[in-house]
């Protein structure tokens, strides 16, 4: 104890660092080692980008699916004659369509019957090269029932019934090399020349018709000697009664042997595909999480090295009055800045990837805001965790050791 204690000894202000200055010290390392900072942020960026993109793509594709289901309706049912031993002859009873149409909530029915004929580009093509194209005799309201559309030309109508005209499904048209119905090309169908009056767009709810050449039921009877017993009936019902109609369709179509009738709901297939996509989404999310983890380890690694390299800076800061906490805050802050750059960059990148892919597929871009916020939040959490250990090491370093060279 000295008798001459100066007045300054009476009180000692605290060592203080403003929050803004914590931020300023947090970017010292990044400013002096830009490339390293960029590379370590890149790891996080890739992880976040892949997660955002996966979520964005699955959301965009789901919204596209919902829009399609909305447009196509989930009230379409398909009645098909079973084929095979114990499952039926492949034909429905002649009166089936009429019976089905009389079910209360049924709004529309259309029929299709497989015709035992093949279609060729011309009469010189060998009989074996049918191209896997089936010929179906269909009712003229098929297109309306399935909510399909015509790519070129017109669909079959009542007027066409008396003439040998055909409409091609999208795949069938492609296989025959016909894309444009306006020149009225001829095809060789069941030993007759048929005029192509229309080419259809894809049927989303009945892909088998894409590979078919469609003629009207009466034309089939007249030119192809087909008795016109339908093998498939498409049914549109009141959306409120789909389940009830589904339950009685088999028995109505074929009261004698209802077990020989297959009743399906085509929109289920789309939904099943979406469920499969969801499983894939979970898988990719897992992969994204792994990438994120690796990115976090990368940041921790870089920070540990940085702490070792910057011993003298740490020593200097302790000498000019930094507390252990200030040193720790600086390094945690640095890890946070790195991961924030990675997180924001990742969200932008992931959004961009989603936008590009969605545009290619013709979807609307839909990245859930939770995915974007969550991406940045996840990056920040990773940053704190990754920065904590190096920061504690830096803070624990004795100033005298840090200043020794």
């Amino acid at each position, binding site marked *: 104890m000295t008798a001459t204690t100066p007045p300054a000894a009476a009180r000692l202000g*605290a060592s203080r*660092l403003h929050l803004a200055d914590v931020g300023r010290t947090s970017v010292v390392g990044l400013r*002096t080692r830009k490339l390293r900072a960029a590379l370590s942020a890149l790891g996080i960026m890739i992880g976040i980008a892949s997660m955002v993109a996966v979520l964005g793509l699955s959301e965009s594709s789901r919204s596209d699916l919902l829009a399609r289901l909305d447009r196509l309706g989930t009230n379409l049912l398909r009645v098909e004659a079973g084929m095979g031993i114990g499952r039926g002859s492949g034909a429905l009873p002649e009166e089936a369509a009429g019976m089905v149409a009389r079910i209360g909530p049924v709004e529309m029915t259309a029929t299709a019957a497989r015709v035992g004929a093949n279609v060729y580009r011309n009469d010189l093509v060998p009989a074996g090269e049918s191209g896997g194209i089936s010929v179906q005799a269909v009712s003229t309201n098929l297109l309306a029932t399935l909510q399909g559309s015509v790519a070129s030309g017109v669909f079959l109508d009542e007027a066409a019934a008396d003439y040998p005209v055909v409409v091609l499904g999208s795949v069938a048209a492609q296989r025959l090399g016909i894309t444009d119905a306006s020149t009225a090309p001829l095809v060789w169908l069941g030993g007759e020349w048929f005029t192509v009056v229309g080419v259809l767009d894809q049927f989303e709810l009945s892909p088998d018709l894409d590979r078919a050449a469609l003629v009207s039921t009466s034309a089939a009877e007249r030119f192809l000697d087909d008795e016109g017993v339908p093998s498939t009936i498409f049914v549109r019902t009141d959306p409120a009664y789909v389940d009830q109609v589904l339950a009685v369709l088999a028995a109505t179509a074929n009261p004698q042997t209802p077990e020989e009738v297959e009743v399906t709901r085509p929109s289920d297939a789309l939904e099943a595909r979406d469920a499969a996509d969801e499983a894939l989404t979970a898988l990719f999310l897992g992969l994204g999480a792994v990438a994120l983890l690796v990115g976090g380890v990368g940041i921790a690694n870089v920070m540990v090295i940085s702490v070792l390299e910057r011993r003298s800076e740490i020593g200097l800061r302790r000498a*000019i*009055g*930094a507390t252990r906490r200030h040193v720790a805050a600086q390094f945690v802050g640095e890890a946070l800045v790195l991961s924030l750059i990675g997180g924001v960059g990742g969200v932008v990148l992931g959004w961009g990837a989603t936008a590009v892919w969605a545009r290619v597929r013709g979807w609307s871009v839909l990245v859930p805001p939770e995915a974007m916020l969550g991406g940045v939040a996840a990056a920040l959490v990773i940053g704190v965790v990754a920065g904590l250990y190096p920061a504690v090491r830096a803070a624990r370093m004795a*100033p005298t050791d840090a200043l020794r060279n």
Partner: protein
Amino acid sequence: MTSHLGSAPEGHAVVRLEGVVKEYPGTPPVRAVDDVSFTIGAGELTAIVGPSGSGKSTLLHLMGTLDRPTTGTVEVAGHAVARLSDRQLSALRARHIGFVFQQFFLLSGYTALDNVADGLLYTGAPLRTRRARAAAALDRVGLAHRRDHVASKLSGGERQRVAIARALVGEPQLVLADEPTGNLDSRASDSIIELLEQLNRDGATIAVITHDREIAERLPRVITVRDGQVAA
């Protein structure tokens, strides 16, 4: 003479060491500082000189409160180091002690002005104040024209001047310079010693730790250290 750099009144003890021992663990333990007592008053310019391994660096660390003695009393600016927590010691360094190192320890990507302003970083002074005082401190060391130059673009002598300005910017009661001319050629070295003399005339209390007798002899007071003890 009234001081406008050191805030301790003339004649008061700025540093007081009494029976200070610093031992590093080992077998046998190394006694780097062995029963050292001295006092440095406000306004003094003191050289602490000794060959390498004499314990003068340990003395610098003890005087700078970067380390605590094993036994004995260290008082800086009236505060007994033993009774202060690590946070309080940090505050003591932030407000009352300025350091100058042989390797300068400037942040290479930052300007001279920002480096000097960092001397006030942990005092909680707002940025505008720090910059204004840093500009004044740079002016005092004769580097006003270099304030916006990046540290890595400066010569060795200029860098040491920046480091001195950083040590002075908070107007500490004590400036500790550890081999301040160790990395400089003789001309730069001379000008740094002249600068320290000038700053001392303006009121700063400065202790220069050096192994160079020639430099030590130029200063008003010399404390010689050998084998951890103060030689007569």
